[in-house]
């Protein structure tokens, strides 16, 4: 062990009650840091989960195919183009694209979908509906229908349909009942309500219906292509970058969830900054506490410092002793504070599992390592002033006392 470190430890353990109080003070600051990190991070996870949890992180759709001039832009010529409506927008060759998407490192779910609009008809009642056709085994991969299921099951076959609770209420539908679906292509089919879900998002609960992709292909006259591909990522913050990669490699339109939720992101950024401010105050408190305690120690140990200097200890050695004390206080307080923070956060459920009105705290986002690191650095920084003050002690003055 470094001799300076040994002396630092000896000084800290010589007055245990005082050191314990100091470390406790630092630990409380670290606890606040960890708790704020977990709270702000948890709130973000909770809000994003509630907002984005039932939608894709990236939605891939066919790019618009407008006519363009083969000669490029000619300044003297005014050209007018008309969007083509001769072909329905659809993704062809999905069988080649989907495996490539699945192989991308960040991608966790790739769901092919056929979508379209239509009406659900029950007797005289008629409700507009957005129909999504999906592979039956992926029915909960994008919107977690299984979690939001309130009646029936999520199993799909060619003649079953899953509807939102609002839609079911409007039409007076229950599980097992038959409903007629009429697509905007003019195709109709009778389907049985297999399940009713409530995701807490009005646009889905009141207007969405899910059928198998094979049924949707028939309803919307898309025997070959699909309407879109939806993707979920391991880290949804990576969506803009991954979307750009996909667009570049496939030539399709890839839209990240962030584009449609800019206000949410702005709100989360503001929230994170507020949290950073509070964490910054906690760190400043730690620095002031450590600096004042060490300055007091410097004053109390003036005569010992003088003796050390008289015995040939360099100013650098004296600085090392006091900086090492700061570092030890920082590490101890940091580890204890982070540990206490972890223990205090343990009883809280993860924000994804938190009930509405619950306390969305994310134990995974306690920023324990950065709390310990920043506290140690802060404590070292705080010790520099007292250390320099100690190194300036004149041995002649204190030996004479």
């Amino acid at each position, binding site marked *: 062990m470094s001799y300076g470190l040994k002396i630092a430890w000896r000084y800290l353990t010589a007055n245990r009650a005082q050191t314990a109080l100091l470390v406790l003070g630092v630990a409380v600051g670290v606890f606040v840091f960890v708790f704020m990190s977990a709270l702000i991070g948890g709130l973000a996870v909770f809000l994003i989960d509630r907002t984005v949890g039932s939608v894709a992180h990236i939605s891939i759709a066919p790019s618009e195919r407008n006519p363009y001039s083969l000669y490029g832009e000619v300044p003297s010529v005014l050209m007018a183009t008309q969007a083509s409506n001769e072909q329905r927008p659809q993704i062809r060759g999905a069988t080649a694209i989907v495996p490539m998407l699945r192989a991308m490192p960040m991608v966790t779910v790739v769901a092919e979908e056929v979508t379209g609009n239509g009406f659900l008809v029950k007797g005289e009642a008629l409700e507009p509906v957005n129909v999504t056709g999906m592979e039956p085994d992926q029915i909960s991969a994008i919107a977690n229908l299984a979690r939001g299921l309130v009646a029936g099951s999520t199993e799909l076959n060619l003649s079953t349909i899953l509807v939102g609770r609002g839609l079911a209420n409007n039409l007076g539908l229950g599980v097992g009942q038959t409903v007629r679906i009429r697509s905007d292509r003019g195709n109709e089919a009778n389907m049985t309500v297999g399940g009713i879900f409530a995701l807490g998002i009005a646009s889905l609960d009141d207007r969405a219906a899910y059928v198998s992709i094979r049924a949707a292909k028939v309803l919307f006259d898309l025997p070959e292509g699909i309407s879109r591909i939806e993707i979920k990522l391991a880290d949804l913050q990576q969506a803009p970058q991954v979307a750009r990669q996909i667009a570049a490699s496939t030539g399709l339109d890839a839209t990240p969830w962030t584009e449609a939720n800019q206000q949410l992101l702005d709100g989360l950024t503001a929230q994170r900054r507020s949290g950073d401010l509070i964490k910054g105050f906690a760190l400043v408190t730690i620095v002031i506490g450590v600096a004042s305690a060490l300055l007091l120690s410097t004053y109390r140990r003036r005569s010992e410092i003088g003796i050390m200097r008289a015995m*040939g200890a360099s100013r650098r050695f004296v600085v090392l002793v006091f900086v090492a004390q700061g570092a030890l206080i920082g590490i101890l307080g940091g580890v204890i504070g982070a540990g206490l923070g972890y223990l205090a956060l343990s009883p809280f459920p993860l924000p994804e599992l938190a009930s509405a009105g619950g306390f969305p705290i994310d134990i995974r986002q306690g920023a324990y390592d950065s709390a310990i690191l920043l506290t140690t650095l802060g404590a070292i920084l705080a010790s520099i002033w007292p250390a320099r003050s100690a190194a300036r002690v004149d041995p002649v003055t204190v030996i004479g006392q």
Partner: protein
Amino acid sequence: MSAPLIEVRQLVKRFDEGEAAVTVLKGLDLSIGTHEMVALLGPSGSGKSTLLTILGTLMQPTSGSYRMLGLELAGAKDRALTEFRNSHIGFVFQFHHLLPDFTALENVVFPAAARRGREAAADRARGAELLDRVGLADRMHFPATKLSGGQKQRVAIARALMNQPELVLADEPTGNLDRESASYVMDLITEINREEATSFLISTHDETIAGRCKRQIRMVDGQVQTG
């Protein structure tokens, strides 16, 4: 007198405290050889402590020359003086000045450990040997605060010898001890001076203590009167 260990020429020390300037050392000349045991006598205010402080490289003279081991120390930088002091000069103070949170052995080993940045086994062995020599082998691991006044001063002597210095400066080393302890400490210093190549400069008011030294230097009003 043996070959000069220290040579002081025309040493002046003036303290400027506001408008009142006090000259404590007034062109002092002094030589001390290796293996010498010298008593420094003189009334209070004669400049004994100031001289010891300068010779110990803890303070710079205002002017004049101070050479030790052939090196000019007057005007040298703090870092060089600190290293020089650590290697070549030992101190014994009137009030022992041990580090209270350390054991006797740790106090003795300090000068060597501070130089190396670690406590080497060889240093601990030498520290133990020195404590044995001053009769404190059984108090080696006692905290400094648990030792008697005489024991503390013996630990201070062991500490002063740790780095095998050529010069030990002792400022009233027995001034705070009872007669028995004072006698023991002086016996110890005499023995070490006899057996090792260490010179001692002992500042004292006590003529008996001074009488045990081979040479006496008397200071009066910032200058050496006899010696």
